[in-house]
């Protein structure tokens, strides 16, 4: 898929913009605070109907204006897709090919972007909850039902936590028999989440290793691990797939719940389930969190993004648009060049990259289209 045309009105520091893009690698050059990230944010928004920088969409509207309008023409699988989004104090109104759409989830299968932002570098060191959020989002395009499953799981968890507290505080009518249906549902929906996360991590693994080695120009092995108490020990591939695994997880889940039941009643809190899990990056069996360099962190996250793009391509036979913000800082020339080489190698249909100077782009290659960003304007460079 690729973006052909983008128009912005009152979006961040773009009061009026209309621009056409080419396939291939597009590079936005500009000094600090000129609107490079803002432009990526707009492109990301058109592909996902949300910002990668903020949940508060009002901040996307240019200061002292009432509404913002984004519209775009993109191509996917040979057919044209028109999207427009109007943001105002009432929220956002989105049209897809001229028709209003209600839920953002209806949009998920249309356009898609994978975005690297320097903020993503926190992922490795951040709290487990941030990592769970990251991967849960990454799973979504591959499993539309995952959103509902997670929402159901969260509500079950809330009910169950309340019940545990009520039992602990000996509230009327709260007893362990009343807990049973919430245990059953926690296991049911929790198992779906565990399976999806496990499958996702297993699919990412080989890509992550390949891309990391190619970008870092080393033979070090990065591994992504889904850390949970509820998966059966890994065996051969065959044993991993299918219904059997779900049954095994349910068994382990049930057992852990009964082992922890006294503790849970003491704390008034659910101590078992995918809401307690984490993801860990290793490089050559060492925790990246504590031992890897800044540059290695960056290369792990970049490899993760490329892996997500590759996985998307496997599933939908088309690459998403790839957006890389401020990607070259902290990468030495060799790694920066290796990254660009890797992107060319994959033959991703369209990529947008921001950089401060033309010279910081590893090779001012004819294969890239350059744009100069200055005070909310864009022109070929």
């Amino acid at each position, binding site marked *: 898929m690729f973006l052909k045309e983008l128009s912005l009105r009152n979006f961040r520091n773009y009061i009026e913009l209309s621009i056409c893009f080419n396939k291939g690698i597009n590079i936005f050059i500009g000094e600090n605070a000129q609107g490079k990230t803002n432009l990526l944010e707009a492109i990301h928004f058109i592909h996902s109907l949300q910002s990668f920088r903020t949940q508060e969409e009002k901040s996307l509207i240019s200061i002292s204006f009432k509404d913002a309008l984004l519209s775009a023409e993109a191509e996917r699988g040979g057919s044209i897709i028109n999207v427009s989004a109007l943001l105002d104090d009432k929220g956002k109104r989105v049209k897809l090919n001229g028709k209003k759409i209600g839920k953002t989830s209806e949009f998920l299968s249309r356009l898609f972007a994978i975005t690297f932002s320097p903020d993503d570098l926190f992922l490795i060191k951040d709290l487990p909850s941030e990592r769970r959020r990251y991967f849960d989002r990454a799973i979504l395009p591959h499993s539309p039902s995952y959103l509902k499953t997670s929402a159901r799981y969260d509500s*079950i968890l809330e009910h169950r936590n*309340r019940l545990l507290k009520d039992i602990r505080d000996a509230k009327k009518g709260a007893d362990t028999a009343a807990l049973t*249906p919430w245990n059953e549902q926690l296991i049911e929906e929790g198992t779906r989440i565990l399976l999806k996360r496990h499958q996702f991590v297993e699919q990412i693994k080989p890509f992550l290793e390949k891309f990391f080695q190619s970008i870092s120009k080393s033979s070090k092995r990065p591994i992504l691990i889904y850390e949970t108490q509820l998966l059966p020990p890994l065996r051969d591939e065959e044993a991993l797939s299918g219904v059997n695994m779900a049954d095994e997880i349910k068994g382990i889940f049930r057992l852990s719940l009964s082992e922890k039941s006294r503790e849970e009643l003491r704390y008034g809190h659910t101590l078992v389930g995918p809401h307690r899990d984490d993801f860990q990056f290793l490089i050559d069996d060492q925790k990246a969190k504590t031992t890897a360099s800044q540059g290695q962190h960056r290369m792990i996250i970049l490899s993760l993004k490329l892996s997500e793009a590759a996985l998307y391509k496997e599933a939908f036979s088309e690459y998403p648009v790839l957006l890389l913000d401020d990607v070259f800082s902290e990468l030495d020339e060799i790694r920066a060049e290796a990254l660009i080489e890797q992107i060319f190698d994959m033959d991703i249909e369209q990529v947008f990259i921001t950089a401060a100077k033309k010279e910081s782009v590893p090779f001012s290659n004819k294969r890239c289209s350059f744009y100069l960003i200055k005070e909310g304007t864009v022109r070929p460079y």
Partner: protein
Amino acid sequence: MAQAGVLNRLIEELMRLPGIGQKTAQRLAFFLLKMDDSEARGIARAIVDLKEKSRFCSVCNNITEAEICEICSDPMRDRKKILVIEEPSNLLAIEKTKEYKGLYHVLIGALSPLDGIGPKDIKIEGLMQRLSNGHGVEEVIIATNPTIEGEATAIYLSRLIKSAGIKATRIAYGVPVGSDLEYADEVTLIKSLEGRRDI
């Protein structure tokens, strides 16, 4: 401000209704204020009549004007089956199909710890009495909603019913008839697959 006092009281009272917040309550109150006198009284009377003349059936908790509802007192009904639902409105939906000939039991709610609703707060005890009194009930069909609260209620009930030695079944979720498989959401599809049957 006596005037505003009466209006405010109505707004406060309307806000007790489910799904009605401050804004809606205000809109309704002003609407009533402007309404024809007889029409407004009609609404008030309907509420009073509802409270005076209708009540919950002493057997199944359906809404009735008599002690026992029409369905429970109908000799043509199949007394071996009881279909359990959350609300009286669910009963109307099933009755419309004219397919189900058994009895009902309305729980008037579903288990919901977050709302402080436990097994004792919905009409489970009455159901268990109907099963134990030697009334010859052979099957309880659980048709609570497919929400997590409805599902929790179904799981809780099915255990109780089975331990009373009676068959418990759960209605199947499925793809809406007449709709295209392609447009069914994935959760519905998964649930329909899980609930598949031999043909």
